């Protein structure tokens, strides 16, 4: 199912997001619908992974896409690709919701901006289409040690901090920091090597 989301899109479709976003600025409903159809599965899957509840996840996804519709001008296409920006916004919203629900507001400020102006892509990213990147990311994550993968997932999908992860996994703080840093660097190197 995961790969199916990308099999219908080829490299030539990548610039389509930019075209659709240009139309979206003109309040083109059809462009919005195409963007939703292209990315709603990815966004919903991410939010559902974080919140673990379908109805709440749909509320968050609805909020994310309405923000896109109403504030499309906040996305600066010249600074980075659209999908990472959209996913960053969706993750932030979902984690906000999760923290509100679990009354862990104290870490709310630790999050990046709710509506990032852009998620700047490194040079090597441009040569990789989404299908291949998705496959590669999943493969690279699968190659990490279970501890590295678990620590990164706790941080990314549950919004936990180093010390919270250490407490959850009952591992030393320094070890957790190393797992996360080394795991992300390995992911980065893997993506660079892919190009």
């Amino acid at each position: 199912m995961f790969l199916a989301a990308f099999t219908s899109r080829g490299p030539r479709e990548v610039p389509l997001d930019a075209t659709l976003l240009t139309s979206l600025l003109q309040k083109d409903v059809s462009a919005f619908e195409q963007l939703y159809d292209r990315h709603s599965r990815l966004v919903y899957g991410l939010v559902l992974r974080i919140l673990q509840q379908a109805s709440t996840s749909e509320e968050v996804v609805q909020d994310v896409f309405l923000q896109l519709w109403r504030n499309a001008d906040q996305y600066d296409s010249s600074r980075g690709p659209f999908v990472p920006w959209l996913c960053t916004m969706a993750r932030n919203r979902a984690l906000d919701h999760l923290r509100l629900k679990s009354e862990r507001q104290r870490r709310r400020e630790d999050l990046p901006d709710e509506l990032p102006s852009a998620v700047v892509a490194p040079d090597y990213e441009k040569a990789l289409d989404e299908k291949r990147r998705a496959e590669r990311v999943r493969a690279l994550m699968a190659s990490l040690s279970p501890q590295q993968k678990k620590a990164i997932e706790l941080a990314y999908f549950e919004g936990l901090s180093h010390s919270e992860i250490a407490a959850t996994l009952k591992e030393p703080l320094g070890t957790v920091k190393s797992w996360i840093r080394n795991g992300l660097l390995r992911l980065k190197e893997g993506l660079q090597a892919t190009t």
Partner: protein
Amino acid sequence: MKNCDQFRELIEAYALGALDLEDRAALEAHLATGCAECAKAVEEARWLVSQLAYTAPQADPSDMLKGRLMQTVRAEAEAQTKPRVMPAKSAIPFWLWAGVAALLVFSIYSAWNASRLQTEIREANSRAATLAEERQKVEQQLAAAKLEAKILMDPSSVKIMLPGSDATGPQLEAKWHSQLGIVVMGEKIPMPSPHHVLQLWFIPKAPGMKPMPSMMSWPDANGKFVMLVSNPPESMDATKAIAITEEPEGGSPWPTTTPLWVGGVS
């Protein structure tokens, strides 16, 4: 760049949102110094972290979600693209017109009421002035009547009879009090000619002195005649007689007609 190396270890975790407060504050303080290399590293780390979204199993949201979204989006698009149709009648709501009308009616009523009240106040003041005038007149009449009564009743008053020039006609009677004044009165006294008045004269004893003019009055409709002189000559002894003539209205400085009544002062 040694300094930067210390923070480079934090950048990936910072982009992930995993830094604890102390580390996060330290890194942000460093970024605030304007370190371009670390800032670029943070941006790239954010992109790297965003790639983790692909590790979540993709899932299909319900058709209802898309339906709700598209309904909202279409409605907002229509609201933004359609020219706003101004109300045909007026941009001012009916309730505001009603309020203005009510205010206008109230203002007109208030103005009319104020005018009416002012008129009533003026009329009341006029009535009060008339009543005060009448009261003053009554008080004056009362005071005069009291004075007349005192003069008439006081035993020191000197009685003076004024027989008429017509022996068959009515006569007048006067009482002269040296301090209070003189009262002249009579019954069935004929009304003087139109535009004429009955005037009292004091005729001095001294030879060659002209009669001194005094009060003027008329008998009432029943012919009753009463005249009060509150300021007679100081000395009764210097007066030879008192007389009444008919003079033009407003009086005369000297007699112009033959006296109708004359009474000697003894």
